[in-house]
């Protein structure tokens, strides 16, 4: 796990996404190859955008209720939350460049 990302769980999920600062939650699992591909780009994105975007990781194996609540049916799924609301959902692995352009409005 990267040094710039935080870990969230079912129990602290609500408070984690409540912030006015956008929080990207990466739904992942140990057995998911494409999820591993996202580790480095997400860690770098978090490092480069400190204070603008929080990047949080949620393990779907260990946190089934959050996964169910947001109908996550494919991983990696990355959802950006702000003030507790879902603002953007990205499904599937992508490069850091792609992430940056798709999330530009949150990184300004």
């Amino acid at each position, binding site marked *: 796990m990267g040094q710039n990302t935080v870990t969230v769980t079912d129990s602290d999920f609500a408070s984690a996404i409540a912030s006015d600062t956008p929080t990207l939650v990466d739904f992942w*699992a140990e*057995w*998911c*190859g*494409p*999820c*591993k*591909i996202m580790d*480095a*780009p997400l860690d770098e994105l978090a490092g480069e955008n400190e204070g603008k975007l929080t990047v949080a990781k949620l393990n*779907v*194996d260990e946190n089934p209720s959050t*996964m169910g609540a947001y*109908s*996550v*049916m*494919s*991983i*990696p*799924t990355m959802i950006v939350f702000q003030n507790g609301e879902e603002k953007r959902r990205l*499904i*599937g*692995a*992508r*490069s*850091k*460049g792609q992430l940056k352009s798709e999330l530009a409005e949150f990184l300004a």
Partner: protein
Amino acid sequence: MSEKVLIIGSGPAGLTAAIYAARAGLEPLMVEGFERGGQLMITTDVENYPGFPDGIMGPDLMEQIRKQAERFGTRIISSNVTEVDFSERPFRVSVGSDDYTADTVIISTGASARWLGVPGEEKLRGFGVSACATCDGFFFRDKELIVVGGGDSAMEEALFLTKFASKVTVVHRRDEFRASKIMVDRVLNHPKIEVVWDSVVEEVLGDSLVTGVSLRNRTTDEVTRMDVDGVFVAIGHDPNTEVFKGQLELDDAGYIVTPKGSTSTSVKGVYAAGDVADRVYRQAVTAAGMGCQAALDAERFLEHGA
């Protein structure tokens, strides 16, 4: 200064080329692409790669081959190539705003899963439509699914999905599978798997989540609706050659053209290995073999200019 060998792609072909080129002292530079490791990263048990009598997980196999390539000094860039210019030597390979030049290039960009291209599919991708059973099967515990396709990867996906789903229906356009016999036998004898022959998916149904599919029987033209929670697509792959269009000779399906028994392309000094140039075998071990050939071809070219 130009690289001696630049390798594009990091599946079994690219990494094997890297091992050989690195051991030959050519200090290869690999642009691995952000989907590093290639298709094996989304497979589970690999039972037919020699040297692993108990099988090995696809991602573990790739991790080991990658370590082997790095051990001999392969340098790796984790991005996608955005543009190439093979019109003169040294060849130019661009990764975003960074340009690299190289005396030889080995292309091993592999292939990507093909989608059905029917209404509803794109909208419901990630909401019940998937091309990666190992990634998404987990989300379909006790649900009913279909797998579309008739090759080895369709059989593998169907069998894997039985771990989660209550029922898996394989939908295939023909009346027999082209998959290997061992896989076909496992599918046909599995208590949770049914097969619908001679049929194609006409539409994926559902507003926010998949609720079903409409199927058309190709012999009777009868259209039926089937209630399912998930659609897994395994109908084959297309070579990743978009970036090489206009630079190399490609065949009508987009594969890089190489003469039989060689990895040479239409440009001297540019070689192709693995699924990007192979529409026949497409196995991890054949890709690795072609990667070895490409590295030896590149080495010979650097020595003799031929």
